[in-house]
């Protein structure tokens, strides 16, 4: 299959300027090869703004630190806007080839679990997350799906939870509008809110749970004594990256964590079985 050289090993992050935090990224190269780092910069709506073909060289088994504000300034972009950035590590031997004819085995070896790191910071505080394997979302390789149970929603006078949902792809011209169904449930398992949203290709959608809850009368009745409830979500037509940001808004303190894939809970939740469960949820939502 043909894969664009910049799409072999990717790490996608969204900036959080709307929370008054800057962004820095640490890429870790465990591909087995020295590589060159590139970046695609999109708006939060997924519109492509700029391609930066060469940010620097990353040696095998080494890390590479990128200050996103500097990168934006160097590329004459307004640093107070929010962006989605997809960084790529291109193994050096592929650097002069536009599309690489690559088999699945080598592609997955190069994608591998890299554990790249994104951190958000201001002058006093920082918070971040390491996460692993990016979605492929490639028509020839597979689009995948999202099956998310997130028992980690906290909302109170002080606390808010936002889901940051990213829709990247290993496809150079990615055009999939992903349909995400989500619901909030109380600890008894009763659904009290159900919604559907579209996540544009290469975009970032911020689901602000507190704002969503404000639509419901007496939403506090559905939150338990620890300010907790559960979110479940399903997306049939692509794999998405869901990151959870919990915020103490009064003190401007935040925390971010990735989700656990279904296979982490049940080691046979793959292939046809996962597809069946995704289909069941989508039909019975």
């Amino acid at each position, binding site marked *: 299959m043909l894969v664009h050289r910049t799409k072999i090993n990717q790490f996608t992050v969204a900036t959080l300027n709307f929370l008054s935090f800057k962004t*820095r990224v*640490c890429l*870790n190269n465990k591909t087995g090869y020295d590589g060159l780092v590139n970046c695609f910069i999109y708006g939060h709506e997924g519109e492509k703004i700029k391609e930066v073909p060469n940010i620097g060289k990353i040696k095998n088994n080494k*890390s590479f*630190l990128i200050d996103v504000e500097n990168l934006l300034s160097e590329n004459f972009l307004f640093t107070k806007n929010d962006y989605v950035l997809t960084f790529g590590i291109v193994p050096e031997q592929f650097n002069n080839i536009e599309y690489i004819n690559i088999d699945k085995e080598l592609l997955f070896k190069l994608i591998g679990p*890299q*554990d790249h*790191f994104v*951190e958000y*910071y201001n*002058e*006093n*505080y*920082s*918070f*971040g*997350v*390491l996460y692993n394997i990016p979605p492929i979302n490639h028509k020839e390789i597979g689009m995948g799906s999202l*099956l998310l*149970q*997130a*028992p*980690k929603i*906290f909302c109170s006078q*002080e*606390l808010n939870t936002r889901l940051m949902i990213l829709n990247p792809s290993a496809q150079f011209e990615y055009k999939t509008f992903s349909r995400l169904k989500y619901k909030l*449930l109380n*600890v*008894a*398992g009763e*659904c009290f809110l159900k919604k559907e949203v579209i996540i544009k290709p290469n975009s970032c959608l911020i689901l602000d749970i507190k704002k969503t809850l404000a639509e419901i009368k007496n939403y506090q009745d559905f939150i*338990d004594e*620890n300010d*907790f*409830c*559960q979110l*479940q979500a399903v997306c049939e037509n692509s794999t998405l990256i869901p990151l*959870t940001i*919990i915020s*103490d808004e*009064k*003190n401007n*303190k*935040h*925390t*971010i*964590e*990735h989700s*656990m894939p*279904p296979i*982490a*809970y*049940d*080691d*046979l*939740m793959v292939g046809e079985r996962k597809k069946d*469960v995704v289909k*069941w*949820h989508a039909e*019975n939502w």
Partner: protein
Amino acid sequence: MLIASPVAQLYINNEEFDTIFCIGNFLSFFSPKIKNLPVECRIAATNSKGIFLLKKVFELNYNGSLSLSIKKLLKEENIQSEIGLILCQIYPKTNLRLEEIFNESGKCFSHFFILYKSMTNNSISLVHPQSTIGGKPFTKSEWKSNQIISTNNLKELRIYQANHSETNKSVKYFLCEPETGSIICENSLESIEAMTAKFISFDKSKFFNYSNLCLKTNNLPVGNGKPLVMKIFEDDSFTIIHG
């Protein structure tokens, strides 16, 4: 279907901190056609010596979930314990064979999330557990965190280490210069008892000359038993990241 050993993560319970445990009934979410089957969420907690302090069972509904303040849970049982492990296993409540009911399921791991909460300055940190009790052995000569630790406004770096294994373990921690890997300073946790957690601190006098750090260890108690890295800032707010 097989139920894996309990998943565990460390709790912190003192004047400064509470730990909120939260889990969903993932069995009903991933096997949604199986309804009307009660599910038990079995919780246990150990103390700083790895001794079991309490065992409790909570029933989860179909698509239900549970959150627990560890501070409140221990207080209700009149138990004082500042650090230890919280263990969890979700189990279908049935006399029938699980293989027959969950005939498509594999080995199930009861992953939960932990929210560490400050009682005084409103910092919060959400993490997932890394390992089951027992876990796979650590077989490498060293472990290196992929996190780059900026020292900006940092007062202290605290490393929390859970020991998910069933024997005592010792771990040496090295703060290193990220570019060269050269060691700036080191500290160690000697003989962390099985099934508990301990922490060590690096104060800023050890690293104030460096803008970025990385963390290495010579060992981990189990294969995926990465430490939690707590950054404590000058205003005493904190953040915790696993590994």
